[in-house]
């Protein structure tokens, strides 16, 4: 049996992803079929089921990857396993508890975490356990920390801080004033998203260091510069969510200014694009690389949209439309999920061995189907959002029901693409779950090349530097 705490985290995360996508499909159907499941599972229940499950996919998946890599570095002591399982148990308890709360209509009524506030307590405890395990494993060598250790520490600490901050509304000073409450809510949510990004991107960096056998890029000034830039954005650029709120203009201008520093990241991608493409082509036949290539393309598209949306004059039109949804879906599915799937394929490859021929065929087909349908899905949402913006500006008195009717063609495409997206992801995820359930290491098939094999040392270093 090859199952270990890390693979248990990841396998659970993969199952939760499919569940979250299933709820997402049902919720999307309500856009084109008004009244569909209105009494049994109204949108007020389906939306939180979808959002929370997808967030738990990211949290469980990222935690599993961090534990796997700490184990691979031989930093996890055996007696610490019970704490890792405690972390796992607490997160699963909150995931199941939140689903039960949503089904029974027991809401806290906040975006992302729409469950009752008491369920946040075990979630915070889980992250304190995570922090304890992480710190115990890597402390003592702080001066020799590569960038991904900093990213993981930052991700864990900011998750705790931001989650606690998102419950300030329980205090009357924050909760009774709508504007102050909304400002603090979106401040904390901006940082929460940043915190899981730190965990996921840190794991992706580690993967590249492992593949290349050279982690010098993880200490380079350039890498640290861009990490500090990302951290600055995590802390201060959340304000673009609340340009419309009547808060102090200083908050909005700070967000605007900081958001524009993302142009440096965008410029870096453009500058290195040609080189990246030739590099990626070389290793594209390997499954983890494929997902990283996909994530790169989605980073480019979504970062471009994010920068445009951070300009208040443009945000004025796109805010409150499906352009925002397209951006959220593009980053969650296109970037975070693609990276996590690359990591899952790498880790399961190491633990359970290569996929069977059938499994590999499914994964490859699922890859193209999920990315192709995600593009259509994303474009449909962008189309719906921009059409909505047009009507908002030129027909401001149009009733909402009529406006939604104008958007039905976009929603129909979005629902159809969502179904194919779900099938694509299922094809990608099933071979991994099959490996996990069988729990045995597949004997190496000489006809299948392991995803992490790069023979030339110079190529390994080049790839790692490029990715960083």
């Amino acid at each position: 049996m090859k199952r270990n705490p890390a693979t248990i985290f990841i396998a659970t995360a993969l199952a939760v992803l499919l569940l979250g996508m299933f709820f997402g499909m049902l919720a999307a159907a309500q856009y084109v079929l008004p009244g569909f499941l209105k009494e049994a599972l109204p949108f007020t229940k389906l939306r939180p089921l979808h959002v929370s499950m997808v967030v738990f996919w990211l949290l469980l998946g990222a935690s599993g990857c961090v534990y796997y890599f700490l184990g691979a570095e031989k930093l996890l002591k055996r007696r610490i396993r019970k704490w890792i399982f405690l972390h796992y148990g607490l997160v699963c308890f909150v995931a199941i508890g939140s689903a039960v709360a949503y089904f029974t209509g027991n809401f806290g009524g906040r975006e992302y975490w729409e469950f009752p506030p008491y369920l946040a307590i075990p979630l915070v405890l889980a992250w304190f356990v995570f922090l304890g395990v992480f710190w115990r494993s890597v402390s003592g060598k702080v001066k020799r920390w590569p960038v991904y250790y900093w990213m993981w520490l930052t991700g864990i600490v900011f998750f705790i801080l931001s989650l606690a901050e998102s419950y300030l509304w329980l205090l009357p000073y924050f909760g009774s004033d709508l504007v102050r409450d909304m400002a603090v809510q979106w401040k904390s949510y901006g940082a929460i998203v940043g915190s899981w990004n730190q965990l996921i991107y840190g794991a992706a960096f580690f993967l590249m260091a492992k593949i290349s056998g050279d982690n010098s890029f993880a200490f380079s000034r350039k890498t640290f510069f861009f990490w500090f830039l990302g951290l600055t954005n995590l802390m201060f650029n959340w304000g673009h969510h609340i340009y419309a709120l009547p808060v102090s203009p200083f908050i909005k201008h700070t967000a605007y200014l900081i958001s524009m520093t993302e142009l440096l990241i965008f410029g870096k991608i453009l500058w290195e694009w040609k080189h990246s493409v030739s590099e990626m082509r070389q290793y594209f036949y390997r499954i983890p690389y494929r997902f990283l290539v996909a994530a790169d393309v989605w980073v480019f598209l979504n970062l471009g949209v994010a920068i445009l949306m951070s300009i208040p004059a443009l945000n004025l039109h796109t805010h409150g439309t499906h352009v925002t949804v397209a951006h959220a879906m593009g980053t969650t599915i296109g970037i975070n999920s693609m990276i996590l799937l690359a990591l899952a394929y790498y880790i399961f490859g190491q633990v359970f061995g290569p996929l069977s021929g059938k499994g590999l065929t499914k994964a490859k087909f699922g890859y193209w189907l999920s990315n192709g349908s995600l593009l259509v899905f994303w474009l449909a949402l962008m189309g719906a959002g921009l059409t909505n913006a047009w009507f908002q500006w030129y027909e401001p008195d149009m009733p909402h029901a009529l406006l939604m009717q104008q958007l039905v063609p976009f929603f129909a495409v979005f629902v159809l693409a969502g179904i194919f997206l779900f099938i694509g992801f299922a094809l990608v995820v099933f071979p991994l779950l099959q490996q996990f359930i069988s729990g045995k290491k597949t004997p190496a098939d000489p006809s299948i090349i392991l995803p992490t094999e790069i023979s030339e040392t110079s190529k390994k270093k080049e790839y790692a530097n490029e990715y960083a």
Partner: protein
Amino acid sequence: MSERTFTRYRLIYTLLSIAFVVFSGFVYTQAVPENNKVVSSKAVQGKMLWQQHNCSSCHQLYGLGGYLGPDLTNTLSSKGKGRDYAAAIMKSGTQVMPDFHLNDAEIEALLAFLEHADKSGNNRVHSYKIGRDGTITSEGETRK
């Protein structure tokens, strides 16, 4: 990593953390709109009902929330809408919105909350002025 580089990184990290704490304090204490400082207990009760029924999964306030239903920030002062219109929808739902079986007191509380939202600012897209630097200013917004 050399001692010097480590010290430099630690300094940057510390400065960013301090700036974050100061900025957080500013966000927590910054002035809310003058016309909206007094919040009635009924409006607070309405806000809790808004959360208990998870209204934000379908409706938006200041463009934040779900997109299945309309933005309700200024619905009470919008042409052709108002209190009676909102109360009727709350009472029986619509083709898309379920009937939440709200009693009269709950509907009154939700209306008080929507009134509080309406008075807090103007979220209509035409009420913003666009600056040359790309910034936007809402109608009547004077704070710096």
